[in-house]
């Protein structure tokens, strides 16, 4: 009898031990910090990130607690927002955009960080290499410098009459500068001249566009950055107002009225970032997770805007357009 009891005890202990272990890890509510350049609601598909996290078993309020800090385009506030987040001692921080990551790196180099929408992370000095980021930072890059050339090419294709292109960038962001330079060097090949315009806020954007549009045959390229993303509505409006053909980096801008975009599928990036967060929460080290670059780019054209600008979509663009929005 006694032996049987001992065996029962052992068996139940063995069975419940993993549960206990899991309960322990499940009991402890993890903190996930989110540092957003835009807002939580848009235009970036932050919801895709949260949803994917949920699919992977992390439910906000149940076993994780998500702390948002969104600066809504006010770059200057990145630093404070980052510090606040770090003070909350999260298990992992999810950050969006180059300036956000830059600010975060200044306040912590131990808390795991997963970034999205960061251009040229190696060139910007955020990671050592794509294959082995090292440190505490990993994530999903969006564009490399050469994309600038593609945008220039695309602009010329959609609006062959264009001879001058305005390039909106955030001059402090290294990646932005890289992309702008690529655009600049590619321009002559397609018969364009470029004008750089460093912008920090809506006001500067307005002024830059207004100044540029005073001369004809102009086109616009909005280098992807928090500033341009947050103010993409304004940019599109101004572009329409000044009858400037514009090329953007994100489809939601095209959906919002922009003429054309050639860029990555942001949804996909955010979803994959959630998978990285899940792995980190389960114990993976960010330094071991390689930085992933996009393999798919999508060309989206807004037909209405095309018609409004009295343009036609050339066959070359039609051939490779992924979506034409009516």
């Amino acid at each position: 009898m006694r032996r049987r009891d001992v065996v029962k005890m052992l068996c139940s202990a063995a069975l419940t031990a993993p549960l206990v272990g899991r309960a322990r890890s499940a009991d402890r509510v993890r903190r996930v910090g989110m540092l957003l350049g835009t807002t939580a609601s848009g235009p970036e598909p932050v919801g895709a990130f949260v949803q994917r996290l949920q699919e992977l078993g992390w439910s906000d309020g149940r076993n994780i607690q998500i702390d948002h800090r969104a600066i809504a385009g006010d770059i200057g506030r990145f630093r404070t927002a980052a510090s606040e987040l770090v003070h909350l001692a999260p298990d992992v921080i999810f950050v969006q955009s180059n300036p956000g990551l830059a600010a975060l790196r200044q306040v912590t180099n131990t808390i795991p960080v997963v970034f999205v929408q960061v251009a040229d992370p190696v060139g910007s000095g955020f990671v050592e290499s794509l294959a082995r980021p090292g440190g505490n930072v990993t994530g999903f890059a969006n564009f490399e410098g050469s994309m600038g050339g593609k945008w220039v090419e695309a602009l010329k294709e959609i609006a062959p009459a264009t001879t001058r292109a305005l390039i909106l960038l955030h001059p402090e962001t290294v990646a932005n500068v890289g992309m702008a330079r690529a655009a600049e060097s590619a321009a002559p090949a397609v018969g364009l001249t470029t004008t750089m315009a460093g912008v920090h806020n809506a006001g500067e954007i307005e002024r830059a566009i207004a100044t540029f549009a005073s001369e004809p045959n102009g086109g616009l390229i909005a280098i992807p950055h928090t500033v341009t993303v947050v103010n993409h509505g304004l940019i599109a409006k101004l572009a329409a107002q000044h009858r400037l053909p514009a090329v953007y980096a994100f489809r939601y801008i095209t959906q919002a009225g922009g003429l054309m975009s050639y860029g990555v599928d942001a949804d996909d990036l955010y979803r994959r970032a959630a998978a990285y967060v899940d792995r980190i929460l389960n114990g993976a080290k960010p330094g071991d997770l390689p930085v992933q670059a996009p393999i798919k780019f999508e060309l989206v054209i807004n037909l209405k805007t095309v018609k409004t600008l009295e343009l036609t979509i050339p066959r070359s663009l039609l051939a490779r357009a992924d979506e034409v929005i009516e």
Partner: protein
Amino acid sequence: MIDAKTAAAPETPSRPQARGRLFLKYVALVVSVVCIALLANGLFSIWFSYRDQKASLVGIQGEKAALAAVQIGQFVKDIEGQLGWMTQSPWLALTPEERRIDALRLLRQVPAITELALVDETGREQLRVSRTAMDAIGSRRDLSNEPAVVEAIARRVYYGPVYFRRGSEPYFTLALASGRRNGGVAVAEVNLIYVWDVVSQIKVGDKGKAYVLDATGRLIAHPDISLVLRNTDFSHLAQVRLARGEREDMSAEQAKVMRDVEGRDVLTAHAAVSALGWLVFVELPINEAYAPVYSSLLATGLVLLGGLALSVLASLMLARKMVTPIRALQKGAARIGSGALDHRIDIRTSDELEALGDQFNRMASQLQESYATLEHKVEERTHQLQLANLAKSRFLAAASHDLRQPLHALNLFVTQLRNETDQAEKGRVIARIDAAVAAMNELFNALLDISKLDAGVLAPSISEFPVDHMLRRIETTFTAAAREKRLRLRIISSRAWIRSDFILLERVMLNLVSNAVRYTDRGGVTIGCRRRGKELRIEVWDSGIGIPQDQQRNIFGEFYQLAIADGDRRSGLGLGLAIVDRLCRLLDHPVALSSSPERGSCFSVSVPLIAAPRQTAERPPTAKTAADPATGRLVVVIDDDALVLDGMRGLLKSWGCDVVTAASDDAAIAALATYNQPPDLIISDYRLTSGKTGFDAIARLRSVLGASIPAFLISGDTAPERLREASASGYHLLHKPVLPMTLRALIHQLMKERADLRGSPMALQPAANPSPAIPLQ
């Protein structure tokens, strides 16, 4: 008596370890047999199923790997095919713009191509389209020395080595030359991340995976993309090394158990993607791979346990069935053995055990019967012994009674003699004393005869003689007695010769005739012979009182006398017919009787008849009267009774002997010392003082005085043991009271023998009384 035995003997307890051992033995036997069978079966099936499953798993893995390799190869082939569309088309004839649109379309069709360059037959780049960089139209860059171009032109298709863009993304160059002459070459940079799509679709069990390595062992595609982007080098893994050591076109190799990149044990198989030199590996964690084997092991184990349990149960039941009847047998046998003979074993298994139980029961009932019979026989014998005891008591009573009569008479006669002065009257009294003594003598002789007969010491000496001799002697004996009773005595002579013992047969006849005379008051007694085949019937007819039918058997018993109505008991002890009966049994001569009351009786004895021999018959041995050899002999008499010694001295002296008497052998030796010659005869009483027997005395004297001195014993002891002893020792033995005539005859015989033969005094003759019984008045 049996019950007493049961009560007395304690039941021997069976040893504790013996009890139940048969049961355990059977249980153990059956269990072990079944266990061995089950174990053997289980082990065999486990072994074989393990091997089979492993083999099939290995086979499946191999096939999966082969399939994966085919799929990957197909991926590349598809791209090739698309490129082929391009190269087959006369793109060189197109306008640049047209070319570009075609190229862009191709890019749209094949997401895996990141960059596409079209090179003309001279090696100059005519077009380049890219997803991430600016397109170049008509750059005319000289690519004629590029290995891709060179190889493609030479071999139509070129598969470049895998390289990693930005140190992370795996790419390879695929170049396809146009089949048309001077058709140019299409060079595509293929992003191998797209292989991840294919690889992640390959299902390998539940937790298994497939991955692709390039020829150097670096990871191209893996379900975990981060491993690919990290440039993980798999070339150190044992299975990779093994695979790379083989020829490229060998595929679907035997799956092996190796360690994967994380150090876990996996079942791995690989296949080569032909022409590309890539290796596709398929890995399945060992636990999962062997799960079916383990579960079948478990199942077999459970079955084994179940079988064990069942076998234990079954064997318990079976053993019980087998052991119960055996136990019943054992218990039953024990009970019967301890005396409960009425116990019967009840087994009903209708097999050999039941038969055994029946045998036991039969044995028990036979034992019961035997005991019953034994008891009955013992009772009978006891009864017989009691009867015999009774008879002996009666005999003693009768004997003592019959002895008193002559003693009483003797008393009277001796007193009368003492006082009588008349010589003539004295003589008459002396005659009467003689008669009384003779009567007592007869009694004692008869007793002795009976004793001798019962002891079996009489050995008949068979001879052949004419029956007439005996008849004459009988006639002589009984003529006077018959005349006195005014009976007619008639002897019919016969010329027959018979074979028998003369003396014993004569005794028989004497007793028969004596009885006939005694029990006949008128008429007569006739003795005759009748031939009956090989036998002669000697018949004694009398016209006496007859014997009733119901008593005819009994009269041959001892001391039996007919109860006669008038209560007149005849004299005589009634031993006569008893002696006849015994003698005839000894001689094996059948005795018959026919009689009826008041009409007389006929006793007959049948003896073997022989043919009369031609020569004259030997004279039957008769008592001879020889010259008295006793005169002048020196006789030693040893007896512890002084009276007897006196009497003996007187008697022997009257015969002319020299007599020395002594009470013991020592006294005799002392007494004889004064004589200068050894004695001629030693006579000793059997029972002497201080426990010595006459044998000892005679032996002593013989050893001292001479070994060949004749000797005989006198004893008052007629017990059959004495008779047998004496007969065995070879000495003559006379019984007190000894008739002087008997004494004298023996002395004469011994002296004569000595004189004749100088031989051994140990003549082995029965101490038969040579003189016939004297008929009583």
